């Protein structure tokens, strides 16, 4: 239960919005749930719906609408490469293809060891530093900019090592 582990944070989130409009807290609460296990479970949906007096279906529809929310587990780390026009002009499509080959997966797939899911995404507002990707994993979202296949390979290896040591 979110409330068992995050009672203070939940209270702080709710405080930011007028009591009569507490539904505004739904997205922050969904992020809180997703941070726990990398996706938003059915139990979390029900709990958030209960906290905000919403229907679980209503809460679930937000997960489908917003691209940063997931209702299914993916790799431990989601590598999201921007291949939108400005990045593509700087070689992002080719870069994405090479990273796929290196990981031996297609776009949208997860590596066999369950570590990495690779996705192509729309503009990340860092077009001057392409090729780039964001990584959604433990804790939050980090940008990795001005990337090459070499620096990406090194990053992937460092994550695997780091995880093996934990």
């Amino acid at each position, binding site marked *: 239960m979110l409330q068992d582990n995050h009672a203070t944070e939940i209270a702080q989130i709710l405080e930011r919005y007028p009591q009569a409009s507490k539904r505004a807290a739904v*997205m922050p609460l969904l992020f809180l749930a997703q941070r726990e296990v990398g996706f938003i479970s059915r139990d979390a949906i029900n709990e958030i719906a209960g906290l905000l007096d919403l229907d679980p279906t209503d809460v679930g529809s937000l997960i489908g609408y917003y691209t940063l929310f997931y209702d299914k587990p993916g790799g431990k780390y989601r590598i999201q490469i921007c291949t939108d026009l400005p990045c593509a002009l700087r070689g992002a499509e080719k870069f994405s293809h090479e990273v796929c080959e290196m990981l031996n997966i297609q776009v949208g797939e997860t590596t066999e060891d369950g570590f990495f899911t690779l996705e192509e995404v729309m503009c990340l507002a860092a077009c001057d530093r392409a090729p780039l990707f964001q990584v959604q994993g433990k804790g939050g979202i980090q940008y990795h900019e001005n990337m090459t296949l070499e620096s990406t390979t090194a990053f992937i290896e460092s994550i695997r090592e780091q995880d093996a040591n934990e």
Partner: protein
Amino acid sequence: MSELILFRHLDIPDINDLDVYLANGGFKGLREIVGKKSPQEVVDIVKASGLRGRGGAGFPTGVKWSFLTPDVFPRYVVINADESEPGAFKDREIMERNPYQLLEGIAICCYAAQAQTAYIYCRGEFWDLAKELDEKIAELKDRGFLGKKLFGEKFDLEIYIHVGAGAYICGEETALLESLEGKLGMPRLRPPFPAAEGLFAKPTVVNNVETLANLPPIITRGADWFRSIGTEKSSGTKIFSLSGHIAKPGNYELPLGTSFRELIYDNGNGIPNGNAIKAILPAGASAPLLPASEEILDTGMDYESVSKAGSQLGSASIIVMDETVDISWVAYKTTKFFNHESCGKCTPCREGTYWMFNVMQHIKNGEGTFDDLATLNSVAESIVGKCLCALGDFSTMALTSGIEYFQEDFNAHLREKV
């Protein structure tokens, strides 16, 4: 180089430290108004400065504030930090490198709008940045620049960060408000406009990050000073995000009215590999592309001149394309983007973005016929002006202008229908 008003971190690298910001005139603007000027006086200064919204629409900021329904409270100020236009990355740099100027600007806006609560709607991908801003807000509260009875006067102010979750449409102000209320980010029918019924159905000002960062210097240096920069109708500087085929991509703060040529060649060091420039998208994916003629390169980048040249300045996200680019591929990329980002509320946009992308895919795969160009233009025509927000219109711009100026690029992929 002209004076930097917004990108002061280029002159003072550690201005993202509160003490450094204060030592360099920080919060002087807010102190000059709280308890000393009436909210109306502040609105009048901003009106007189000619400041126009930097998010894309270019609407006069002070005029927007003056539409707030009188005597209805509470009011809200919402900051649009959902920067998602392909080619736009300016607000991020302000928030990262010169954040206190934005936060002071928000406070000034709240004072003018008589709002006690502001929400910064920050795109979810800026996760780390949102955390940093949160810490800076807490610091301001500790140091007496936010909270109850500011500077001992009758003015309370709280600023909160609200993190979005990945939807381009939430940059549209009414969709942003829906999203902030915890709903699907879809545009509202207007009227009522946000100034009458905005966040939580209360009078609301929605302004872009860059717009608000302009307020502290406007207060301390005056409307006349601000008007002396830029052009008569487009005053001040603008941050131009320069990307694509360019030697030195990045953000450049220049007076409005600076020519494309100066930005691309003097600031951006021109096109790499000795290639010739072919086309410019001046407002990211959302406005017609311009063929890069000498005349276009000499056009000033202000709202009026770019519009006269056949496009829009928008958020000034300048994407440069060289002679190696196939414009039909550009149209494929922009239609793909809008097909993904259409929220699905209005039928012409939902269906139209799907069909434009579908036909462009078909063409890209070598299956297109010459009839497809007429189909694309007819789908575009049935979207423009028929939707609740501008996304529908935007989705057609690069495509139809691409066909108009560079039809040969499309023709190369097409064959006669058999």
